[in-house]
């Protein structure tokens, strides 16, 4: 089963403050551990929301809103995707995740399990989603 560790944004990450060597080293070390254990699938940091945008929907109407966005704690600054045998194993790995806050103070990592396509019953929408996936 796959889990995503979602690193929440902070004022610093949103301001584009790059982490110091120490945090870089801790993150690199942790991901190296994941890799050595054969569980790491993918990981990446995200640029500040100032460089992103949102699409808001209201029925058929859609509006594009440029970043940055205010509610920092709801934003995402990075992710790590792992594949493990059990929920507990994901929990154990999550427990070891270094504090991702650039200033070393308050940080947050949210863990979510991925749906496998098999979790959905067969439906036309799912089939079409699969087709889209093939175009990636």
């Amino acid at each position, binding site marked *: 089963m796959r889990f995503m560790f979602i690193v929440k944004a902070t004022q610093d990450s949103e301001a584009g403050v790059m982490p110091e060597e120490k945090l870089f080293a801790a993150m690199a070390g942790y991901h190296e551990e994941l890799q050595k254990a*054969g569980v*790491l699938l993918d990981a990446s940091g995200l640029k500040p929301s100032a460089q992103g945008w949102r699409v808001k929907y209201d029925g058929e109407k859609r509006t594009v809103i440029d970043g940055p966005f205010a509610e920092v704690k709801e934003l995402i600054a990075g992710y790590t995707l792992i594949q493990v*045998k059990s929920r507990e194993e994901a929990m154990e790995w999550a427990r070891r995740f270094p504090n991702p806050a650039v200033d070393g103070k308050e940080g947050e990592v949210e863990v979510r399990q991925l749906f*496998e396509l098999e979790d959905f019953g067969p439906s036309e929408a799912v089939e079409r989603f699969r087709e889209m996936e*093939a175009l*990636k």
Partner: protein
Amino acid sequence: MAAAEAHRAIDAVWRIESARLIAGLARMVRDIGLAEDLAHDALVAALERWPESGVPDNPGAWLMATAKHRAIDLLRRNTRLERKHEELGHELEVQQEMAGPDLDAMDDPVGDDLLRLIFTACHPVLSSEARVALTLRLLGGLTTEEIARAFLIPEPTVAQRIVRAKRTLAKAQVPFEVPRGAELGARLSSVLEVVYLVFNEGYTATAGDDWMRPALCEDALRLGRILAGLAPREPEVHGLVALMEIQASRSHARVGPSGEPVLLLDQDRARWDHLLIRRGLAALARAEALGGARGPYALQAAIAACHARARAPEDTDWERIAALYGELAWITPSPIVELNRAVAVAMARGPAAGLEIVDTLTSEPLLQDYHLLPSVRGDLLVKLGRLDEARAELERAASLTRNARERELLLARAAAAREEI
């Protein structure tokens, strides 16, 4: 923490830490059987302690410290015994041995220990079944029960295999080390073979009612990824990882709604896992960058990559696949590779060209009971409109396979050929 919850948490720690633990201990005590016993003692201690105290911040270090204490006790006790029974001259030797491997050695990087453990578990003195069982147990962190379930064999059989394997290693005095120089290549092949064997057992279950056992594929992939981290400069390790990642990317697509196999060209490519394909292609690129494009695993991965890159079956570069099989046949001559080449040639240049190659293989003793030979031959005959012969070949293929799902598929194709007659 509720007891059941604590036990599940400890299981998870065990899965993460057990290989490193056993590897570190094996270097201390020079016996992987004893190392596993010590690690297991530490696990039992954790099961007693942690539900009360909670899982410590660094559970790996806790387990190692606990196991190490026991190891030192044991070594001291043994030394005392030796002192009583042995002559003075021998005693000196024992003491030297004690001083050498045990305490100072803990500074070694963990990775080296894991590599030693892998090479020892896959040592050629062991049968391939024993290597597989030992590797899954010591490196994959699987329990005897899990291994038994995965391979559909009774648990006592697995337990016995593991006990015997450890005894064989001790008896043969297999050193706990990473082979060097000329030996490394051959020993590495033995390791890769074990990993791929596990993968294949999951990917095309050779027996039983399931066409695939995905958990085994995941275990093998995990072992392969670990190995790639430990031996990053070995191109064939990346080649094997590439092959497994790309093949695993098709897992969901190769099983139909009622569990029946779906052949590569009939698969819904939208269901391929593109993350795994991307990882596989990256691993293949690494193998090639290390000068390993001509390795047997890298070549097979390159073939799998041809399929992965084709958005639709008709986009497949069959000429290139046929050429890659040709190269593979040249470095590892095998009638099975030749049979695969025949399929690619048939796709590239028509069924008659493929059949010409297949017909040179029908007297091959190695393929006498191999179901894919009549299966491929039957397919080509269907395409050539020689339906009577085709039906006979497909029925023969069905009678040879041990996989129930595959048998059904072959019989259905034979019946279809009969209807067209």
